[in-house]
């Protein structure tokens, strides 16, 4: 980036809330079913149908708001009116000038604080597939099919202030947001699958000027990589325009995988959504008691988990990996139960990128670490046992001692190990000579031989100790 310009980014993050049913109807909020099967008269906008607000969706929205340090305020649903076939009522019910959450912030790991302007509830639309056109796109299509299964799914739109100054910071903001959503169980927050969607409002300004210039909203950012690339591309485009004496036009642009943004359409007139308060719903006024209940039920947030992992000796990077995997409670509870912190952290970072890891019980991890520390299991064995534990979790089936016994892992008799080491020395006289001359790295030859003889079950640390004894150091 040219030194005299700085990037200004605000992000709108839309997340599908993890409710069983839709925002205003009892239809299942579920994907992958046959088209138009998860629908009720409300989802189809049938005449005479009326919306009823989903309590769980409100609670998830409040929890996210509290996690983002927002104020939870009385809110009102509005109708946003526009015609589109996948909008069953030809209006979207959405919170407009009175959102449920407002004025918060998110501390992005790495230092900066990004203001949260608001987070509001709204309903999703259905899905249109165009027939006959290339790749299901509208151009050249001969017809369209609409699936209303998604119509009415609860969305929370979280709008940041334009406080983000780089592509990397934007990416870190989204990652931290995702960690919070996952920790709260508010959403599965998958960018690639669309349960989390990010739109970026991008502009540039002369460094230090503090002004806000014309922004462009970039959509179709379905990975962190495309988010970063789009910000850098768009910022460069704006700078070039300014430098050539032109200026960007405020518009919506589409990120495409050719590495550029494209103007979606130049609208001859601005949209007029004719917002007005939704008369079929009453204002949503959460009382303190309800807010307190939601707050009390919230799990520990990732930032706090990471701080405690740091205290356990995990470096910031490891702490982030553990928190993002949702394994912080497991590790912290295992340590609290007496597990060696360093081994617990190492396992979580290196050996637990596995399905089922989040189902492990802290006591089971603690007991595995204890077996390892006491020499009952080698590091390699411990990793293997962990793999089996994840497959069998949750429950007693994931007990590490039972699994170790099943696998025939028993701590090797030290006399037996010494005999194997001596055999390895006898088989490799040249290497032994070098080792005795001080070339410590040839120790690998003996360790390897012993490992081969024991099919990997020997404790490498113990072998090294015996070698040192034999050399007399």
């Amino acid at each position: 980036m040219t030194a005299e310009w700085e990037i200004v980014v605000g992000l709108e993050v839309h997340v599908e809330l993890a409710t069983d049913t839709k925002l205003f109807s009892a239809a299942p909020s579920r994907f992958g079913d046959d088209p138009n099967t998860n629908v009720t008269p409300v989802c189809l906008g049938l005449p005479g149908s009326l919306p009823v607000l989903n309590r769980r969706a409100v609670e998830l929205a409040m929890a996210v708001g509290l996690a983002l340090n927002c104020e939870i305020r009385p809110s009102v649903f509005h109708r946003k009116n526009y015609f589109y076939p996948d909008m069953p009522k030809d209006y979207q019910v959405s919170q407009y000038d009175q959102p449920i959450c407002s004025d918060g912030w998110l501390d992005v790991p790495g230092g900066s604080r990004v203001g949260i302007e608001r987070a509001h509830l709204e309903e999703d639309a259905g899905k249109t597939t165009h027939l006959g056109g290339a790749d299901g796109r509208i151009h050249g299509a001969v017809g369209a099919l609409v699936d209303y299964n998604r119509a009415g799914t609860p969305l929370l739109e979280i709008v940041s202030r334009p406080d983000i100054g780089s592509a990397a910071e934007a990416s870190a903001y989204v990652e931290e947001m995702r960690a919070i959503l996952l920790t709260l169980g508010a959403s599965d927050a998958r960018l690639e699958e669309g349960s989390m969607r990010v739109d970026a409002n991008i502009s540039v300004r002369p460094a230090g000027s503090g002004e806000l210039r014309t922004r462009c909203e970039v959509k179709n950012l379905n990975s962190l990589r495309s988010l970063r690339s789009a910000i850098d591309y768009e910022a460069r485009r704006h700078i070039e325009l300014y430098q050539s004496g032109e200026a960007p036009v405020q518009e919506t642009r589409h990120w495409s995988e050719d590495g550029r943004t494209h103007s979606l359409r130049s609208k001859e007139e601005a949209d007029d959504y004719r917002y007005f308060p939704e008369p079929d719903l009453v204002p949503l006024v959460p009382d303190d008691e309800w807010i307190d209940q939601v707050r009390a039920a919230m799990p520990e947030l990732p930032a706090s988990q990471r701080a405690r992992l740091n205290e356990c000796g995990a470096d910031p990077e490891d702490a982030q990996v553990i928190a993002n995997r949702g394994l912080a409670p497991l590790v912290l509870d295992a340590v609290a139960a007496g597990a060696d912190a360093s081994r617990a952290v190492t396992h979580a970072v290196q050996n637990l990128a596995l399905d089922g890891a989040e189902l492990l019980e802290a006591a089971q991890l603690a007991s595995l670490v204890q077996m390892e520390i006491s020499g009952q299991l080698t590091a390699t064995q411990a990793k293997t046992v962990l793999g089996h534990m994840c497959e069998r979790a949750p429950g007693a089936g994931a007990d590490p001692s039972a699994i170790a016994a099943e696998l025939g892992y028993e701590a090797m008799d030290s006399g037996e190990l010494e005999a194997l080491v001596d055999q390895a020395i006898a088989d490799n006289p040249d290497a032994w000579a070098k080792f005795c001359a001080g070339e410590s790295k040839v120790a690998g030859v003996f360790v390897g031989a012993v490992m081969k003889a024991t099919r990997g079950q020997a404790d490498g640390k113990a072998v090294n100790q015996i070698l040192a004894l034999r050399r007399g150091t």
Partner: protein
Amino acid sequence: MNAARAIAADVRTGTRRATDVLEEFLGRIEAHDGDVHAFNAVTAERARATAAAIDAAVDEGRNPGPLAGVPVAFKDNLCTRGVATTCSSRMLEGWQPPYDATVVQTMTAAGAVMIGKTNLDEFAMGSSTEHSAFGPTRNPYDLARVPGGSSGGSAAAVAAGFAPLALGSDTGGSIRQPASLCGIVGIKPTYGRVSRFGLVAFASSFDQIGPFATDVADAALALGVISGHDPADSTSIPAAVPDFEAALERSVEGLRVGVVSELTGSGRNDAAVGGGALGDAAGEVLDGIDADVTERVFEAADALADAGATVGRVSVPAVTYGLTAYYLIALAEASSNLARYDGTRYGLRVEGADVEEMNRMTRRAGFGDEVKARIMLGTFALSAGYYDAYYGKAQRVRMLTRRDFDAAYADFDVLLSPTSPCVAFRFGERADPMTMYRCDTCTIPSNLSGDPAMSVPFGTGAEDLPVGVQVMAPALGEETMLAVAAALERAAPPLPKPQLVEGAAT
């Protein structure tokens, strides 16, 4: 005796068979609905099956409910499962809802027998039923005149003796005005008293379902059946349902009755009214209210004074802005509520080159002129740059109306006014939209405030046509309102019978 409660009592005791009752009413429909056109559809076969089931229940010693065997007509904007619900619009011609409106469920559960779906102004937009896509309904008192609207079909059906009870919807007077023009009783309950689930929306913040009946007691019976909290309607009030029929026995002695000055300015020498208690009208008086209609209101006040009520004048200044505020808000909501009729999912579709053209062609063909005009006005009222001046200001008038009514109810238990500014008018007589909209002058204030109001027949006006007096009460004040209406009913001069049907409406 064909009052609903008499039928229900007879059917429950086995004195009459529900099937026989039904055939009697079907016979009258067969003979006369060709002239009246109260019905969009008569559901005779389904009704026969329902009636037979009720008779079977009685035979087995079970109680089919408070409306056992009572034929009931539903306005054709109330969803009926598997039975076409058209809103008298080409747009929904033949559309069969997959569910019953909550009121249809509760009426059916109480033993009522759906006899048919009644005509209305398209999507309930009108005050004469002239705007039905399927042709107008005629007033049983004079077939050359309108029955009022928009629930003209329901009102005419009850007046003509096609059904002892009917349900309608009231957004700006659509139950009370046709009840007044057809010489029957019509109630708009407190907003939220009756579930709107299954009522095809016109203006959601005003729409309220209510009953038509030949007398106050039948109306109270039906109101009790359809009232109550419904979790399917978020604006439904979680309040207990009082015994409305018991309220009819209450004395009006000591009740404070206010005659609304703005709606009754013209008329006879005030000094003689209400035992001399009625002072001069203060404040602005709305014009266009016929003197003989106002005169009936004064007579009604006299009658209540005779029965021991205290009568006085009261000013409710905001009602003079009611019409304007109402049409801005109602049409704004309507423009949004009617957006869904786009040809995509149900109802009429006219194909086009693309989706936008299909939407446009469908709406052009499916909606009548009045509906199109209202959608355009409502769209305009919500448009960027106009919102504050129109919709926003109208909402402030709505708040003022509530405030003014609250002030009036601090001094009075109920308020009186005309229901309609005039008796039934001739077809085409109010073709100018503003003239038609003024039909709702007296009824709209209660829709703005959300308070209950009803029309009860009280004498006749021009051409010996029925006049209705409107009784208004504060929110959830239906019991007092009904007690006053019952007192007026007792004091009212007998109405002539409709020219149409011998023995109807008795």
